[in-house]
């Protein structure tokens, strides 16, 4: 204490006091000032965007350009929205392994928080559909499944097969099976139209109808009964034909052998 008071006339004393006062008042302000939620959020948001930009520069920019503007290797991401990122990266389609007719689903290499950051960055490039929340893609209606079935047959079954088993398109492209697909991704795919799938925007297919379709697809994959006993993959003529040839003809051959092997003989009397 003596030491301190001895130096109170030091030329830098004023500066030290001033700094001390600044730190103290700043600290008090920080402690007692009313914090604004929105402000805190947007700074978290801008933090996520910054993080996303960093991830983007490393993982995506070689094809989509440093600012997501697109290049000859990959399309522009301006205006695709966070839903598209959540879908493409969340299902492992992006980053793509190699160029080809179609980028298939594979193991995800980012975790969900990294995906959210990437999505935040891409969403900041231009307005587009946002990642849906759980109640956006979950239907509470009791007749959602039957309505969804109608909508599915009109809009989806031509490519994805009547039971959602998927099907072939042109030149190596295909519509993937919808079994075991997270409802969120089904919803996002309808919103954003990934790769060659056309999109079904809310203007032509309202949110409620997308929920119904999701409900139907989940029902079809998990609970739907098989009226014929065996679904044989619900693929139609290919598996059914194979079954018919192997088992149907097999039975006929067995019967023919039985007919030829058994002839009743009268005992010689």
């Amino acid at each position, binding site marked *: 204490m003596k030491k301190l008071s001895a130096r109170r006339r030091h030329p830098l004393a004023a500066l030290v006091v001033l700094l001390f006062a600044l730190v103290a008042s700043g600290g008090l302000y920080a402690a007692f000032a009313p914090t604004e939620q929105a402000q805190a959020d947007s700074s978290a948001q801008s933090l996520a965007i910054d993080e996303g930009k960093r991830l983007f520069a490393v993982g995506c920019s070689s094809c989509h350009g440093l600012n997501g503007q697109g290049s000859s290797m990959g399309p522009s991401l301006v205006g695709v929205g966070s839903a598209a990122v959540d879908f493409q990266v969340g299902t492992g389609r992006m980053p793509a392994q190699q160029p080809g007719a179609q980028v298939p689903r594979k193991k995800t290499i980012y975790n969900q928080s990294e995906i959210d950051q990437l999505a935040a960055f891409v969403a900041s490039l231009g307005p587009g559909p946002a990642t849906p929340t759980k109640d956006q893609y979950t239907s509470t209606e009791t007749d959602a499944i039957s309505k969804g079935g109608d909508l599915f047959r009109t809009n989806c079954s*031509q490519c994805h097969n009547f039971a959602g088993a998927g*099907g072939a398109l042109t030149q190596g492209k295909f519509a993937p099976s919808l079994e075991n697909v997270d409802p969120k991704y089904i919803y996002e795919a309808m919103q954003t*139209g990934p790769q060659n799938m056309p*999109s079904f*925007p809310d203007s032509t*297919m309202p949110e409620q109808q997308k929920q119904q379709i999701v409900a139907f697809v989940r029902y079809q994959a998990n609970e739907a009964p098989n009226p014929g006993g065996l679904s044989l993959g619900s693929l139609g003529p290919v598996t059914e034909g194979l079954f018919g040839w192997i088992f149907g003809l097999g039975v006929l051959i067995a019967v023919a052998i039985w007919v030829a092997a058994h002839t*009743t003989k*009268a005992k010689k009397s």
Partner: protein
Amino acid sequence: MSDDNLPTAHDAVHGHGEAAVAENPFADPGLPAHEPRRTDIDERAAKRAERQVSLMFVVSMLATVGFIASYVAIDKSKIVYIFPLGHISALNFALGMTLGVALFCIGAGAVHWARTLMSDVELPAERHAIEADDETRADVIQQFKTGAGESGFGRRKMIRNTLIGSMALVPLSGVMLLRDLGPLPEKSLDSTGWKEATPDAPIRLINMNTNEPMKAEDIGIGSLTFAKPGPSASRPGGLQETDEDFQQAIAKDALMLIRIQPDDIKDDKSKGLGFEGVLAYSKICTHVGCPISLYEQQTHHALCPCHQSTFDLSDGARVIFGPAGHPLPQLKITTDPSGYLIATQDFAKPVGPSFWERSA
């Protein structure tokens, strides 16, 4: 030769074989003795078998008649409950059962005939070189005659006649089904539900999902929407799924709506038929009429799942692959003052597959 196969002759061979075992364990044991069947030794049993075979052929004939009768008489929309099967179409059940019985009885009759009445004497046929000398040919002819004689085809007249009858009747089932190909479509395929659209009385395009009219800005680039005709003079409520003829109507009226950047549309005529890049194509394949809408939004190709016809929707739906003979017809669309998409005329060409009277 046939003399060798008399039971006594076989017994001799058999006995010889047994004797051979002692000297040579690998000697040819010969054929086992022929045991006659009941029908071989009992003429009454043979007659009964003959009647049974004929009965099966007669049942087959009756079933074929039943097939034709049910085809004519049963209404195709009739649903009945049949115990283990549940609720099924009466017509399908009747056609399947009668045709099944008709074919089964011919088969079963033939098998029963072969097992009870045709000769079951084992004939050893030794292998020879391929060339057939006169002796062999004579032998074959002789065998053929023997076979014909043994089958009793000429002798058992009842079997012969009923077999001929049932075999002659069964193909009638197939001939009968050809009736489904008629009647000819005449002019009914030349026009669709859009035919009443005129510039003064346009028909709105109704979204198949929402049942509401659509504005052009609702159709995003890369999106796919299906549409049907809205209210017209003859259908004031527009085409509704509850309409009795909905299936017939939608099979011609269905549209798929897409939007392409106007600069990417390669065909100027097609661009003119659309509205600011929104194009309305018939959903019906021009090959044999499957509904097609496997639309790839990046390549603008639409694929038909039936026989892989592929149409380039950015180039007037030109056929770029597959058996389809015509491009998909495109509907001329525009918007009304309130911005809703409308049609002001029918398709310029008939939709769907070619047919005999097709005008264009």
